[in-house]
């Protein structure tokens, strides 16, 4: 058997796992591993500018491809800098393996230079973690880490590797295991057939059904099945922020996003529904508004791979634990093998009602923002980009108003094209995530939608884009303030703008982009919006930073009324309430 050092074993195990890309940043404790990377060819390493950038890049890569994102950082500050990105991946159930260097085993606990208890620090935000005790353990730990990260409800796994374990002088026999035996981990498989039959019967008896689909449908590869099911039944579908793309945004059965900034028709239909089929969604507080007032007349069918998500905040009438693919295909089989159809006249009435809601306040039946002013409205920027890219771009978003405008106005027909930090709401996610997507899909249009606040949280990655030639578009909706914070301060704090404005301190983003070797473009006048955007999107071989000055006073609507509101209680504009 071949003898390898721990560092070489680690890299070989990654190769045997099929890894061809690592995002990382070297440092003392990780140097043996970095040397092993230098001495091989098949794995490409992307050198980021900050470890947070590495985790978000791997995350964006994982979201766009469904593969496991791999990160390599050093101990101490390298490891703690990765924490925000690990938490982001954890909240959105993204498969990721983070390898962190650690001080040598005999120094652990001595407050050594660049020592931090990474297993301890990351414990609440990982699916699992390993501290490697000897080099011989490495192949099995790597195999387990990838298996745990990518199966069941996916999530990040940390492997903390003390430096002595990777010492090039100590060599051991290497064999990558073909099979794993884990008595303590059995991810859910097929759902319970009896429950699935009960759910189908419930769906067939529905008069006002809504399908509520979340990120689990995207992650679990269930988008096609969900689309087939919804079309077959002719049921309306709403997606969560994480689920956008799980059902085609341009399908007439799509109600738009639901929740805090969901559409009027989606939230109102949920409130009045008699049967809700929740798939791969977790009844997040940004969806349900006040749990006690959530969908008072609805029977709830909840399909999820994670039993702990079921009946956590909202009690399910028909819980089904299983993979989205297996449960949805079993539902479809039952429907196809019987002649039973839902009550057609009830469904027609329900659609008539929904169409009336759409007509009154829907986002897609008429512009719900100002169209005759001098200032550029943020919504029309997203709409313009949607038209210019024909809805085919991969869009990575940062966090704030621009994220909500994009979720509302860029309609995704395919899964894995909308890349955003939904659960943790991490500002700074957008740019590195977009770069991760671009590496996965070099020939696709990749856009980072951001704001002048978020972009400055990971702006250093503009340099990574230069080094690896990653021509993404950065669309900055610049309102010269922390827009979402300001919106809440205006709505709930009588307009006291505590620390949410920049007071003329913003950099010139055009010059900044140029300093990194990119192209900068500023759009200030409404009449030049389309032409300039077309010009920017015609450039394919450069990173383009498009700084668009938008109406700084605009708010995101609809916005659910808080606290104590139900799904249907919404502000529709600054003055209009349901």
């Amino acid at each position, binding site marked *: 058997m071949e003898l390898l050092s721990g560092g070489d074993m680690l890299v070989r195990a990654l190769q045997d796992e099929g890894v061809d890309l690592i995002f990382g940043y070297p440092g003392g404790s990780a140097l043996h591993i970095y040397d092993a990377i230098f001495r091989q060819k098949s794995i490409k390493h992307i050198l980021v500018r900050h470890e947070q950038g590495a985790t978000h890049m791997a995350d964006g890569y994982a979201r766009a491809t469904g593969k496991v994102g791999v990160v390599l950082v050093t101990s101490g500050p390298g490891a703690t800098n990765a924490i925000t990105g690990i938490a982001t991946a954890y909240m959105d159930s993204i498969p990721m393996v983070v390898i962190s260097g650690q001080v040598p085993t005999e120094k652990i606990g001595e407050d050594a230079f660049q020592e931090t208890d990474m297993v301890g620090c990351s*414990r*609440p935000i990982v699916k699992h973690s390993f501290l490697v005790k000897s080099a011989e353990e490495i192949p099995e730990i790597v195999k387990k880490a990838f298996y745990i990260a990518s199966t069941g409800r996916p999530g990040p796994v940390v492997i903390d590797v003390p430096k002595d374990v990777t010492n090039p002088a100590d060599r051991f026999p290497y064999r990558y295991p073909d099979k794993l035996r*884990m*008595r*303590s*981990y059995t991810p859910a498989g097929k759902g319970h057939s009896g429950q699935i039959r009960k759910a189908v019967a419930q769906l067939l008896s529905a008069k006002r059904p809504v399908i509520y689909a979340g990120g689990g449908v995207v992650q679990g590869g269930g988008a096609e099945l969900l689309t087939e099911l919804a079309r077959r039944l002719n049921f309306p579908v709403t997606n969560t922020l994480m689920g956008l793309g799980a059902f085609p945004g341009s399908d007439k059965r799509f109600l738009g996003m639901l929740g805090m900034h969901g559409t009027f028709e989606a939230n109102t239909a949920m409130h009045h529904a008699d049967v809700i089929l929740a798939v791969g969604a977790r009844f997040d507080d940004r969806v349900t508004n006040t749990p006690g007032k959530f969908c008072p007349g609805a029977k709830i069918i909840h399909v999820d791979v*994670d039993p*702990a998500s079921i*009946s956590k905040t909202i009690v399910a009438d028909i819980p089904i634990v299983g993979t989205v693919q297996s449960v949805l295909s079993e539902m479809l089989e039952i429907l196809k093998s019987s002649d039973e159809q839902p009550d057609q006249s009830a469904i027609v009435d329900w659609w008539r009602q929904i169409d009336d809601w759409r007509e009154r306040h829907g986002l897609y039946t008429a512009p719900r923002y100002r169209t005759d002013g001098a200032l550029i409205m943020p919504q029309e920027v997203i709409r313009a980009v949607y038209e210019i890219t024909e809805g085919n771009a991969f869009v990575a978003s940062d966090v704030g108003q621009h994220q909500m405008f994009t979720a509302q106005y860029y309609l995704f027909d395919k899964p894995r094209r909308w890349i955003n930090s939904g659960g943790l709401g991490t500002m700074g996610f957008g740019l590195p995530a977009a770069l991760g997507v671009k590496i996965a899909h070099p020939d696709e249009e990749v856009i980072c939608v951001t704001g002048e606040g978020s972009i400055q949280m990971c702006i250093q990655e503009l340099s990574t884009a230069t080094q690896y030639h990653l021509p993404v578009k950065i669309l900055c909706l610049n309102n010269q303030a922390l827009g979402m914070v300001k919106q809440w301060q205006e709505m709930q704090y009588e307009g006291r703008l505590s620390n949410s404005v920049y007071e003329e301190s913003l950099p010139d983003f055009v010059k900044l982009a140029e300093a990194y070797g990119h192209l900068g473009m500023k759009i200030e006048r409404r009449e030049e919006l389309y032409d300039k955007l077309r010009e920017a999107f015609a450039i394919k071989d450069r990173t383009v930073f498009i700084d668009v000055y938008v109406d700084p006073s605009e708010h995101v609507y609809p916005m659910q009324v808080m606290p104590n509101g139900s799904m249907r209680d919404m502000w529709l504009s600054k003055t209009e309430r349901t």
Partner: protein
Amino acid sequence: MRRIISVLMENEPGALSRVVGLFSQRGYNIESLTVAPTEDASLSRLTLVTIGDDHKIEQITKNLNKLIDVVKLVDLTEGAHIERELLLVKVRASGAQRDEIKRSVDIFRGQIVDVTSNMYTVQVAGTSEKLDAFLQALGEHTIMEVVRSGVSGIARGEKVLSV
């Protein structure tokens, strides 16, 4: 409601901190906790007492099950079970008190395991309720120091928690 949850988990470093971390992270109570290896050295058995309604207990057991190191668990309070806790208490015992304490120890089927001219160390095993009652019977003035093991438990009958 008070529940006794018994957990079989991998006898690995860090496994206990994952269980304890889960409780603090999600705001669940731990009334008592004991843990030790089993006859199979690769497994530890952890018994914890917690308080919560059915919904909370369901969440606790689901989230415990999600931990990769947890192999199996059972809520012992769902069925007939035996629970035991060990109490060691150091009491002042001189003069006439000595006989009286001895009588109390006999009533509670305890044992005096250490003696000096001024004190006894008493050992009592039983349910937490019984240990509470014994301490009450002693009276707080006689008690010098108390240590309790936390609850261990096992199901009655042929039901077993094993891999």
